[in-house]
C-alpha cells in the first residue's frame, strides 16, 4: 500500500501540567489512513499527549512543534482544531445537564459544517445522518433524547464518544483509553465501529494501556511511551510483546538512554 501524506508531525514535544513536565521530547509522524497505537505504563504521558494535541488549556506546551495538515497546530484554538478535523474521544466524557445528546451532537456537527461553509442541518436532516451511525454502535433513538452522558454507564459514555466520532467524521481521531471500563461485548462493538471508520483519508491515534483493544483493531504502528518519550516503535507484534513482558524492560531502557 502506498504511504499517505504526512498528516501529523510531532517534533521534540515537551509539555507540562501543573508545573510538572510530563512530555519530555516526543517525536511522532502519522500519515493519512494510518492507525497508530500509543501504549505505555500509567503516568508515562499517554493521556497528556492526547490532551495536548486537542488543546486542553490546563496543559502547557514547553517546547517542540506539531504540524497538522500543513498548519502549526499550536496556533489553533481547540475549536479550530476540531473544525479542522481533530477529534478526541475522551477518557472521561463530561455530562451536560438539560441538553439532549441529539441537540448537542447536531450543534457540534453544525459548528463544523458552518466553518467549512456548508449548510447547517435541521433536526430532520440530522436524524437521517444519525440513523446508520446509531445502528453501528447498537443504539436506538432513545439514547439521543437523554441529556449528554448524564446517568450513562461507563460503557455508554464510551459508545457515545464513538458515535460522535462517527457523526463528525474527523480527519484525525485520537482515542484516549476508550477501552478502559468496557466489557468484552462493548469492546467488540466499539472496535467494530472504529474499524468501519478506517479510511484512506482518516488517521487514528489510539491511546491504550492494554493490548486487548488491539486484538480487534490492528494498528499499523505501535509506539511505547515511557517517562515522556517514545522509547520504542514497531508493528502490531510489539503490542503482543508488551502484553507478554510488561513495560518494565522498556522503562529501564528509557532511563538508560
Amino acid at each position, binding site marked *: 500500500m502506498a504511504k499517505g501524506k504526512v498528516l501529523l508531525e510531532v517534533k521534540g514535544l515537551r509539555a507540562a501540567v501543573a508545573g510538572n513536565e510530563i512530555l519530555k521530547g516526543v517525536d511522532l509522524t502519522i500519515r493519512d489512513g494510518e492507525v497508530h497505537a500509543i501504549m505505555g505504563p500509567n503516568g508515562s504521558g499517554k493521556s497528556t499527549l492526547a490532551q495536548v494535541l486537542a488543546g486542553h*488549556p490546563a496543559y502547557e506546551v514547553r517546547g517542540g512543534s506539531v504540524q497538522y495538515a500543513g498548519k502549526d497546530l499550536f496556533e489553533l484554538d481547540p475549536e479550530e482544531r476540531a473544525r479542522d478535523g481533530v477529534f478526541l474521544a475522551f477518557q472521561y*466524557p463530561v455530562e451536560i445537564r438539560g441538553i439532549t445528546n441529539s441537540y448537542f451532537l447536531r450543534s457540534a456537527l453544525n459548528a463544523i459544517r458552518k466553518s467549512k461553509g456548508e449548510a447547517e442541518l435541521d433536526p430532520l436532516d440530522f436524524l437521517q445522518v444519525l440513523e446508520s451511525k446509531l445502528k453501528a454502535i447498537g443504539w436506538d433513538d432513545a439514547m439521543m433524547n437523554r441529556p449528554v452522558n448524564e446517568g450513562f454507564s461507563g460503557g455508554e459514555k464510551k459508545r457515545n464518544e464513538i458515535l460522535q466520532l462517527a457523526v463528525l467524521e474527523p480527519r484525525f481521531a485520537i482515542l484516549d483509553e476508550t477501552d478502559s471500563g468496557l466489557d468484552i461485548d462493548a469492546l467488540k462493538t466499539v472496535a467494530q465501529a472504529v474499524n468501519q471508520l478506517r479510511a484512506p483519508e482518516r488517521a487514528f491515534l489510539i491511546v491504550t494501556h492494554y493490548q486487548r483493544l488491539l486484538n480487534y483493531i490492528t494498528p499499523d504502528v505501535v509506539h511505547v511511551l515511557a517517562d515522556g518519550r517514545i522509547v520504542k516503535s514497531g508493528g502490531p507484534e510489539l503490542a503482543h510483546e508488551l502484553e507478554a513482558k510488561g513495560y518494565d524492560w522498556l522503562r529501564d531502557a528509557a532511563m538508560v538512554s
Partner: protein
Amino acid sequence: MTGIEAHVQQPYKYGFVTDIESEVVPAGLNEDVIRLISTKKGEPDWMLDWRLKAYRNWLKMSEPHWPNVKYGPIDYQAISYYAAPKKLPKLDSLDQVDPKLVATFEKLGIPIEEQKRLTGVAVDAVFDSVSVATTFQAELAKYGVIFMPISQAIREHAGLVQEYLGTVVPANDNFFAALNSAVFTDGSFVYVPKGVRCPLELSTYFRINASSTGQFERTLIIADEGSHVSYLEGCSAPMRDEHQLHAAVVELVAFDRATIKYSTIQNWYPGDEEGRGGIYNFVTKRGKCAGVNSKISWTQVETGSAITWKYPGCILQGDNSIGEFYSVAVTSHKQQADTGTKMIHLGKNTRSTIVSKGISAGRGQNTYRGLVKIMKGAEGARNYSQCDSMLIGDKCGAHTFPYIDVRNSTAIMEHEASTSKIGEDQIFYLRQRGLSSEDAVSMIVNGFCKEVFKELPMEFAVEATRLLGISLEGSVG
C-alpha cells in the same frame, strides 16, 4: 490570564439615555410630595389617605438588613419620587405618544406603535413614573378583560382597586412595601372576569430613564373564578454611576379554579465590573390563591440589578390550590442577589413547587432564601423544592437558606439541592467538538436552566435564553 474568567464582560446593551423633556419633582420625601403625586394622578381622597397612612407607618419602620447583601446607606431624601415626560399622550390615543418614547421602546424591542405591535401580546409601557402607552386595550375589553395603568384604574375602576389593593401585600408588610404604598406611581392593573381565558399575553415593560429618581411601580392582577391569565414584565435602565432604587409591589389574587401565570425577565442595569452604579431592586411580590383549585405560578429570570431582594410568594388559602416558583438568578461582576420564595400553605391538599437555579460568575454573590410554611389546617399539603447553584470561576459565591416550618404532620416535604461548577473540562469538551467557548458556556447554562425556561411563555423563552447568553458572555474563557 488563562482559562476561566479570562474574558471581559459584554457591555450592558440597554444602557442608553433618552433625551426627553421631563418633569422631575425635587428630591425628598414628605407628605407634600405624596400629596403632589396623588394630585398629578388625579386620585380620589381614599387613595391619598391610604398613601399617607402607609407613609406614616414607613417612618416608624427600619430598612431590613437580614438579606445576605452588602450596600451603603440609602438616602431616601436624595431621591426624586416622581419623573414624567412632559409631552404625554391623552389616554387611548397612541398617535400622540412622543416619537422619542416610541423610539425608546422600539430600541428595547417593545414596539408600541399600532402597525408594529407584538402579535399576541398586549403591552403597557411605563417610562419613569408614568405609563405612556397600553396596547390592545379595546381588543381586551371585548372579553371584559381590564388591562390598564393602575393610575387609570384608580380613577375608572375605583371599586375593584379599593377592594383588593393591599389585601395580599399589606401597606405595612415590610419597609420597602410601605415605601411603595406611600409613593407608588405607575404599574399595571388587570382584571379577568369569570370564566374568561385572556386571549393575549399581557405584558408591562418598565423603563427607568431620569437620573436620581426611583421607580416605585405597583401591579395588581385579579383573576376571577375559572379565568386564566398569563402576564409578563420586563425592565431596563440606563448605565449610571449612581445607584437607583426600584421598589415595586405586585399583588395577585386568584379565585376558584383561576390560574395566574406571572413571568419576569428582570434586566435592570447591573452596575459595572467594580460595582459602580446599578439598580437596587427591592421588590415585594405575592399572590393569594384565594379560591379552591386555583393556581399561581411565578417564573423569574433575574439577570440585572446591582442588588436583588425579592421573594415572590404564594398564600395557598383555597383547598387544592397550587403555588409554583421557577427562578433563574444570575449574578456576575459584583452583583448580589438574595432571592427565593415563600409558600404559605393554609388550605387542604395544597401543593407547591420550587425550582431555583442560581448562577454566579465574576465576584457575584447569589443567595437562595425560601420559606415553606405548612399551617395547622393544611391537611395533606405537599412541597417539592429544588435548589441548584452553578459557579463560574472561583471568586463568586452561592448560598442557600431554606426555611421549613411544618405544623401539620400529614405534610409531605421534599428538598433537593446541588452545587456545580462550570469547569475547564466541561468547556473544553464542547470546544473539542467544534463549539466556540461562548456557545459552550451558553449551552451548559441553558441546560442548567432548562426546567425554568420551559415555564416561560414561548415568545419570551427565546428572549430569556438570549439575555442569559449576553449577561454571561465572556465570563468564561
